[in-house]
C-alpha cells in the first residue's frame, strides 16, 4: 500500500462531493509527485506541460474514480497514459516504461531537490579541476573526447582522473557509513 493512499483518497472523496479546499490540497500534493515523475522522463518544458495535462485529465475524468479501488493506482494510470501520449506525440520512442504506482508516489520534487543538493555537496569535496571533469562527464553528458580537448589532457588521463575522483568519493561515503 502506498503511504499517501489514505490521505489522498480522503481528499478525493471530499472533492467528488464538491469540497474545493480538499481538491486544492489534493492537486497540490499530486503536482509534487507528477513533477518529479515527468522530470525523470521528459525534458523540462515537456515535463511541466505533462504535469498540467495530467492535472486537467484528473479533473475532467474525475468521475471515473471508483472509490472501491486505490486512488493512487487511478492517478498512476492517468500519469502513465499521459507520459505515453507525450512520447507518442514527439515520436520519441514506442516502448512503454516498466514502472509502477510506487514510482510515482515514491518521489516528489522536494526529495529530488535534496538528492541534487547531496550530489552538489559531495562534488564540492573534490578539487575544482577534478570537480569540473566529473560534473561535465557524469552529470552533463559531455564526451570524454570533448572534455580532453577542453582541458588539454589526453583521453585516457581524463578517464583515469574521473574514475579516481568517483572512487575517492565512494570511499568517502563508505567511511562515513562505517562510522555510523
Amino acid at each position, binding site marked *: 500500500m502506498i503511504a499517501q493512499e489514505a490521505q489522498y483518497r480522503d481528499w478525493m472523496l471530499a472533492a467528488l462531493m*464538491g469540497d*474545493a479546499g480538499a*481538491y486544492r490540497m489534493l492537486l497540490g500534493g499530486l503536482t509534487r509527485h507528477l513533477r518529479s515523475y515527468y522530470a525523470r522522463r521528459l525534458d523540462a518544458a515537456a515535463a511541466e506541460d505533462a504535469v498540467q495535462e495530467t492535472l486537467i*485529465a484528473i479533473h475532467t475524468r474525475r468521475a*471515473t474514480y*471508483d472509490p472501491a479501488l486505490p486512488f493512487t493506482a487511478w492517478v498512476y494510470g492517468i500519469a*502513465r*497514459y499521459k507520459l505515453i501520449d507525450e512520447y507518442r506525440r514527439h515520436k520519441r520512442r514506442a516502448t512503454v516504461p516498466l514502472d509502477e*504506482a510506487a514510482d510515482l508516489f515514491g518521489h516528489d520534487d522536494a526529495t529530488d531537490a535534496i538528492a541534487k543538493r547531496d550530489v552538489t555537496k559531495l562534488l564540492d569535496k573534490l578539487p575544482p579541476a577534478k570537480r569540473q571533469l566529473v560534473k561535465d562527464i557524469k552529470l552533463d553528458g559531455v564526451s570524454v573526447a570533448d572534455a580532453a580537448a577542453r582541458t588539454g589532457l589526453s583521453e585516457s588521463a581524463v578517464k583515469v582522473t574521473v574514475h579516481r575522483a568517483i572512487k575517492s568519493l565512494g570511499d568517502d561515503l563508505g567511511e562515513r557509513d562505517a562510522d555510523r
Partner: protein
Amino acid sequence: MQTDDLIAHLSNDLPPVRNGAVMRVLLSAITLGVIGSTAVMVLVLHPRHDLAEAMTSFGMWTKLLYTFALTAFGFWQVERAGRPGADMVRPALLLALPVLAIVLLSLIQMNAADADPRLLLMGHTARTCALLVTMTALPTLAATFWALKRLAPTRLALAGTGAGLFAGAAGAFVYSFHCPEGAAPFIAVWYSLGVALTAAIGGFLGPRFLRW
C-alpha cells in the same frame, strides 16, 4: 499558465460528481447502439419468419442465454476499461464460463445417438453467420467507443478489444432473432467467431480512436 494558477482555476468551480456517472454514460450510449444493431437486424436482415414459434424452442434459448452471458461479462469489461488502474483480468476470465457451458452442451448434442455432426456444426448458414454477427454489432461497437472515449481508458488496445467483445456479444444476441440455427455446436463455433472478429476489430481500432 502557471501550474499553481491551473490548480486554483480547476478547484474554483467544482460541482459534485453524481453517483453512477460512469454507468449513465455507458448505458445511454449502449442503449442507442443496441437500437442501431436492432435496426440493422430488422431492416437489413429481417427477423426469422417463424420467430413466434421459435421463441419456445431450446435452440433459441441456447443462443439467447449464451450471447446474453457474454454481453453481461463484456459490459463489465468495458466498465473496467474506462477506469484507470482497474483490473481487467478478472472480468476477462469470467468470460470463460459461458464458453465452457456452450462447449459442454455441444459435446452432449454431438454425442447423442441420432446426431448428425456435420449438420449440428455447419447448419445452413455457417458461411455467413460470423460476418453477419459482426455487421449487426457495428452500431453497438461505435456507440461503445463513443462512451469509452468519454471515460478514461488508459490501455487502448485492451479497451478496444473489450469494447469489441461486448459489442460482438450484443450483436450476436440481436442476430439471434434473425438466425434460423439453434444447434449448440453451431453457436459455439460461428457465433463465437463473430464475437471474436468484432473483438479483433475493436482491438485494432482502439489505439486509433480511443485517445483522449
